[in-house]
Each structure stands twice: as C-alpha cells, then as structure tokens.
C-alpha cells in the first residue's frame, strides 16, 4: 500500500446524469463515453492524479460518487475529509442546477474546510445551440459569488476546461496556508499533541 499517498481529496457531487463519471473519465483517462475502446482500467470510480504546481508534485485523489437519489443520504460519508468538492450542474438541465444548492448547504454545514467549485457541464451541447442552454451563465456566476466559490463551464466530450478546473483546485490547495503543514512539517515533538486535532469520527 506504500506509494499510494494522496495529498488532496477532491470529491465530485451533483445530480445523477450531471456528468460526474464523464468528468472523472476525461480527466483521469482522457476519454469520453467509451470513445476510446476498452482500456486496461477496471473502473473509474477513484483515481489518483499527480499535478505539478510551482515545482511541487501534488497528488489528487478524485472521488466519483454514486449520484442516485437513493444514496443521497450517504453523501456525507463521501465528502468527509475532502479538501475540495466539485459540484456539477448540467447546463442543459435546470433542475440539476437547482440541486447544487443542496450540496452547497451540505458542505457548508458539515465540511467547512472543503473548498467548493461549481462546474457547468456539457458545454459542448450549448456552445453552438443556444436554445439547449437551460442554465444561464449569470445564474452560475451569481450563485458562485454568493457562496464564494469558483465556477467553470466544462465539457467532458471535448475536454474543454477540464484540466484547468483541476489545475485550479490543486493551485488553490497549495496556496492555502492552512495546508502548508503537510509539506513543511514543523518541529512539534511527541508531547505537544493536544494542539492537533484529527478529523476522524
């Protein structure tokens, strides 16, 4: 199990069919909906990805989640300990945008250290055909401003903004001083333990 160290847990949340699995597939395996025939991966539920930020290697663990409503009650277990969450809204489905508020609230109340990123997915479908768009650009940006989150419109089909999204997540992680201790451990000795609290249930 050595060598499987992950610095940063990124969890994907959003309504079913919003495009979580496709996003993971595109980012981790650079493919879309089976357009590259069967490769040697056995599943795309979890993947670790190394990115370089300012000369530092950061390993992100990307967590796909089961989006079906019957598992919604368990989403808390999924995002526990996540440093970043991508909440996905399908740009062609207004209800999926409405649903993002639910996860935002969940995260704000249960996982306050988790940074939130909004992503409007399936950009390729609305890019040339404006009438497909059910989620206005300003709706997402206004909402993002309101909750102090980043927002990006992405397409897993074309790869548009996918790398940028995760790059941004990794950069923010490195820039956040509260994450510094991980890379530059201070010299606490064995008996100053009471200050540190771990996040475990």
């Amino acid at each position, binding site marked *: *199990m*050595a*060598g*499987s*160290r*992950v*610095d*940063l*847990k990124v969890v994907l949340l959003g309504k*079913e069919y919003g495009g*979580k*699995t496709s996003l*993971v*597939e595109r980012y981790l395996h650079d493919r879309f909906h*089976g357009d590259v025939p*069967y*490769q040697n*991966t*056995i*599943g*795309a*539920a*979890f993947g*670790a990805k190394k990115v370089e930020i300012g000369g530092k290697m950061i390993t992100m*663990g990307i*967590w*796909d*989640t*089961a*989006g*079906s409503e*019957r*598992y919604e*009650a*368990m989403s808390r*277990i*999924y995002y*526990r*300990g996540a440093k970043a969450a991508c909440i996905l809204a399908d740009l062609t489905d207004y209800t999926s945008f409405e649903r993002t508020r639910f996860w935002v609230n969940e995260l704000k109340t249960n996982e306050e250290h988790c940074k939130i990123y909004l992503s409007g997915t399936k950009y390729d479908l609305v890019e040339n055909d404006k009438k497909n768009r059910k989620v206005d650009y300003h709706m997402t940006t206004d909402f993002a401003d309101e909750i102090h989150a980043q927002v990006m419109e992405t397409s897993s089909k074309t790869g548009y903004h996918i790398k940028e999204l995760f790059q941004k997540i990794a950069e923010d992680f490195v820039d956040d001083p509260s994450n510094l201790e991980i890379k530059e*451990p*201070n*010299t*606490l*000795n*064995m008996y100053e*333990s009471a200050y*540190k609290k*771990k*996040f*475990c*249930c």
Partner: protein
Amino acid sequence: MTSKKKKGFHVDESELLCKNGCGYYGNPGWQGFCSKCYREVYQKAKDAQLESDSLRKQRLAALQGPAVTANGETTLKFNKFEEKRKQHQAPKAKTVKTLFKKGSASPNKEVPHPWTGKRQPSIESEKAASDFIEFLNTLRKPAAQDITKQCKALIDRLQDQYELSVEEQSDIVQDFYQNMGERLQTHSAFKGASAEQYETMMEHMEKYMITRLYKILFCPPTCDDEQKDLAIQNRIRRLHWISAEMLDADIDSTKPSVIDYIEKAQTDIIEMNSGRSPIDKLLCIVRCSKNIFQVLNISRGQPASADDFLPVLIYIVLKANPPQLHSNIQYITRFANPNKLNQGEVGYYFTNLCCAVTFIENLDAQSLSMSQEEYDSYMSGEVIPAGTKFGEPICEGLRLMYANLATLDELRIRQDRLRENALSLQQEIKDFRDSVVKTVQDVLTTKPFIIQQPRMPANLDEENAAESSLLPPPLKPEVVAK
C-alpha cells in the same frame, strides 16, 4: 405463522424507540437510548467499569440466574447488554490481573522478549513481531531503535491503562500517528528517507502495534460494538430476500466467471474479520472491491463507475453478512492511520463500505423503489420474491438444482416437440398414402381400363375396302370389235 412474522417486523419499528422502553425515541448517537436513559445507563456502565473484581464476580453470578428467565422484549435487551459486558470483562479482568502480577513480580526466569512483551502473544501477534523485526533490520540502527522505543511506549501505555474508554484509546493511537509522522520527518535518525520510506515505516508500525493490541482494542466491552454487530447481522438476515435487480446491481449471473468473482468478493469481505491490523482489514476491502469491478466489467463489457460499484457492494455485503461488521468498521475508523483512510484509494473503498452499511441500516421501501405494501410483504415473509430467476448466487447445490431443472425443462420441451413431429410425420405418411390411393382410384374411374383389339398387320387391300368403294370400279375387260 403470519402473525408471528408480522410481529418481527414491528420490532424493527420499536427499535427506533429508546432501548430502555421508556417510550421516548432513542438515538444511535446515544447507543439507541433516549438522552435521559443513555445518561443513566452510561453512568451505570462507567461505574460498573470501576467496580472491583469481587463485586464484578458477584454480579456475574447474580446475573446468570435472572438473565435466563427474563423474556420481555425490552428488559431482555437490557439484560443482554449487561450480560455481554460481563462476558467481556471477566476474561479481561483476568488478563489484567496476570499482567499486573508479572509486571510487579521480581525478574522472571524467562526474560520476556522485548517484542513479545508481558502478555502471552497470539500466533498473529508473533507473526507481526517477526515481520516487524525483519523490517527494522532493513533500517539504520538509530532509526530502528527510535521506532522500537516509540512503539513499545505506546503498547505499554495502552496495555497498562485498561480503564480507558475506546475513544481515549483511539485518541492516543491517532496522536501517535500524528506525532510519529512528524517525528519521522524531523528527527535526525530518519534524515534522508524518501516519502515512500516514511510511509512504509508508518505502515509497519501500525501493523505491528495494533496487531499486538488487537485483543484490547477490537470490540472492547466498554462500548456497545458487539450489540450493534448483532443488530446489523439480524437486519441483514431479515433482508435476505433482496435481489440484485432490486438494488439495480448490474450483475450478469449467467456467466460462470461472474459467479466466481462474486464468491471471491464475498469471501474477501468475510475475511476482513480475521485480519488483525487495520491495514490487513483494509486490504480485504480493497480485494473485495477489485473483485466487484471484475464482476461489473464482465457483466457490462465496459469499465464501471461509482454508480455501478456501490449497488454491487451493497449486494455483496447483504449476501455475505460479514461477521462483526460494525466492530470491524469502528476498529478501522479508530485505529487506522487517518492519512490513508481519508484520501487514497483504500479510503475510497472503505468509504463505500461505510455507505453500504449505512444504506442497509436505513433501507426502506423507497430505497428499493418499491411500494410499501410490497416491501412489507417481503419483510414479513408472506411473499418470496421470484428473484431466483436472476440467478442469485445462492448455495452451489441449489444453483445446480436450478440449472438441472432448467435443463430438464428444456429437455421436456424438446421431447414434446419430437413427439409432435413424429405424430405429424405419421399423419403426413398416412395422408400421402391416402392421397396416392385416391389419385389412383380417380384415375381408375375416369380412365377405365379397356382392352382393345390387338392391332392386325396391315392388309393393304382389305383395309382399303371402304375407300375402294369410292374408287371407280375396276376396269373390266371388254370386247370392243370383232
């Protein structure tokens, strides 16, 4: 029969109520009691913990009598709870005593090996110790010495402080991981090691220490893990009727290799209980998960995603009903290195297992997308779902029987078809014969058989008799002139 089973269902509802039977609702956070009763019970439990040995024995003896006669639902539960505490405490009290004796006695003849400590080590514990020593031998001396010292200190601390609650034990172990992680990176003894080496060191320490402390830390009598184990086990038993289809688990059980992987996954998750350290247990979960991905790959013919994975995991947990499920999850949560548990792939699978268990605990009609009536009827046992047609991996014998039955069915159909064909062939032959006979008859009647005169050889003269009449009479000789 039905009424009895119905009653079984109602108990489930009442489980929501305070376990003390006071009528208020209980809460899992208060171990199933309402806040008031929890405080009472917990206080009692705490007091009991502090009681002296003699008192304990006395109460154990007293309990052996009434515990058997008690059979009211609520009181029984409470008694069971108490009883179990005793069962656990009795042997522990003993070990603790011997431990103290040994500790305080003058140096023994057999000097305890630094790695086997004060207790009589189990086989697993000895194996872990020898593995650990082997690992330490690969390190530089100061590093090995420091690790040895730190681990020993922690083991001694936890072995001696037997009155600690499990939360406190967990805190101690977690603090150790945190501090040791920092120590490895800052202490001069470990200078120059790579990140992977740090990780390996942490893993070895975890494996060794927690294996050594397994008896103390796993499902300790100071908490209600055991009771919860039984609760979830019973719950899974009562959900035996759930099929893969109901969970939307994409399992193609007509393929033998799928059945194979399903069985492997079940074995893996059951084996989790025999692992001693959190790492060993986690590895069982990882193996189980990989086998599930195989199941999905073969069934779907394409890589699976989280949406496909979780239902199958739930299905596997339901079918395997792994022993001491709750205890194992708690043990991992409390004593595994959180770095691993929270982020990486191992953590991902563990998290999914936690989700599966939560799902099973809260499962209702809605989560299976069926009507309440249907759910109730399955739950009460009135109706047994026709699930076997989807070929649930039931016991091998039954599976074979179903397979044989199916083959027999097919054979019967083929035989029937054969007979039909034979009959129709027979009919055809008969019809053909009849038609031949009929045709012949027809021909005979329409074309009667008339025997004609045989043809005579042509007699030129005679034949032309008729014609000859038309001919002018033959010239007769005439006397013309004298």
